[in-house]
């Protein structure tokens, strides 16, 4: 009996150690905290943004799905609109060195200027640690965290999983919908969707 109990304790402890690896970001649960450095060398800690809505947007400028939303100005529009309303918008680049979408800080800053992007910051994640913490699958892939630190959206930018710029008009933008609802105190009606895009180019 005692041995069994000991086994149970050992098992539970093993589970606790194993948990972080399988702890992806789940809607309705606390968003995993992280510390990451942006393209200007500033450090961002998610938990320091308690009290604000935070958007995480995975990016890869070589990916045609990402290009759809930047060539059209759709992503920049969203970034401007929501950061103006006090939302923290963190773009995340998880491409590994040598892979499509990998950028140095200087390259990223030049690109942001070139395309008029307006996120709060771009987090450089060449090891993929932040990407794996959230289990980001695609570019784009969007996560929204509420002021209490709870994940309230995990999924696609909109409901048209194509690379066609012409599909943006008439698409239902899930980010706009979720933020409109959440910022006016309503529950998010579409809290998950299939995040469409290119696979995130993690290190091998």
């Amino acid at each position, binding site marked *: 009996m005692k041995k069994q109990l000991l086994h149970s304790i050992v098992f539970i402890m093993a589970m606790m150690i194993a948990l972080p690896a399988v702890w*992806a*970001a*789940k*809607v*309705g649960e606390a968003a995993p905290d992280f510390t990451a450095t942006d393209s200007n060398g500033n450090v961002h800690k998610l938990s320091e943004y308690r009290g604000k809505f935070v958007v995480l947007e995975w990016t890869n400028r*070589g*990916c*045609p*799905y990402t*290009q759809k939303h930047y*060539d*059209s*100005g759709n992503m920049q529009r969203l970034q401007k609109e929501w950061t103006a309303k006090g939302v923290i918008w963190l773009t995340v680049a998880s491409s590994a060195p040598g*892979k*499509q979408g990998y950028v140095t800080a200087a390259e990223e800053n030049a690109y942001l200027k*070139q*395309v*008029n992007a307006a996120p709060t910051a771009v987090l450089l994640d060449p090891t993929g640690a932040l990407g*794996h913490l959230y*289990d980001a*699958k*695609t570019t784009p892939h969007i996560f929204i965290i509420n002021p209490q630190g709870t994940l309230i959206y*995990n*999924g696609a930018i909109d409901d048209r*999983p*194509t*690379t*066609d*710029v012409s599909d943006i008009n008439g698409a239902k933008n899930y980010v706009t919908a979720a933020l409109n609802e959440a910022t006016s105190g309503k529950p998010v009606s579409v*809290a*998950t*969707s*299939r*995040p*469409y*895009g*290119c*696979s*995130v*180019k*993690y290190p*091998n």
Partner: protein
Amino acid sequence: MLSTCLLLCAAHAGAQSPENSHAKVELIAEQSKAPPGKPLWVGLLFRLDPGWHIYWQNPGDSGEPPEVQWQLPAGFSAGAIRWPQPIRLVTGTVVDYGYEGRVLLMVPIKGPLALHSTRMPSVSADVKYIVCREICIPGKAHVTLAAPPGGDWGPWRALFAQARQQLPRPAPWSVTAEASKSQFILTVRGAPQVPSVMFFPLEPNQIDNASRQEFEPTRSGFRLRLKKSDLLVKPITSLRGLIVLGPGRAFEVGADGFTINGTAVHRAGN
């Protein structure tokens, strides 16, 4: 902004020519005209460069399936694509479902009997697809049906015969499903003894594509444990997909009416 778009869009258009996109698409038919009362089978034949892939109807974690717009004579109609069994495409933690090498996406064309059975209908299609290896390139093709080279239907007929062998069939088994907090458990009875199987979900966001599927042989078949997707926030009432035993051995299964907490078990249809 506009000029940026013009430049980039032009660059995209360049990448979309079939020569650059690592995929060649052709529209072929099984025969010149349909047998009386039957559809004419046509197909989009994709030839992919080594290592490049296109996607199944549920593409998995990334990508998207090809999309077709048909142009047909008045009174004709095109059915849905008959998707052959896909393969699992693993890129680290991202798992997709699709095709490599050569794949034929078969489609039945139906038309007015009199016209249909006398001569080859004029059929063309606009195909949009994304082809990926490490990176993804969108492609577009306008394809038109013509007679095969040299008028020899043999090679095309052979391609259709091969494709038919890769089409999933309704599973002649009993399938039941349960759901625990983190898993779906499929119990299959009446299936042959096999060393392993692979489940391909028809709907996205039900199972976690990247997780290992736990296979356990039983006396009457096998049990398969599938990790639920983190994107699944509501209980589902139906889990559909393919169970693949091996090449040419893909079976459609569907389990309906089970509940999230796991005790209710219902007989599955196909």
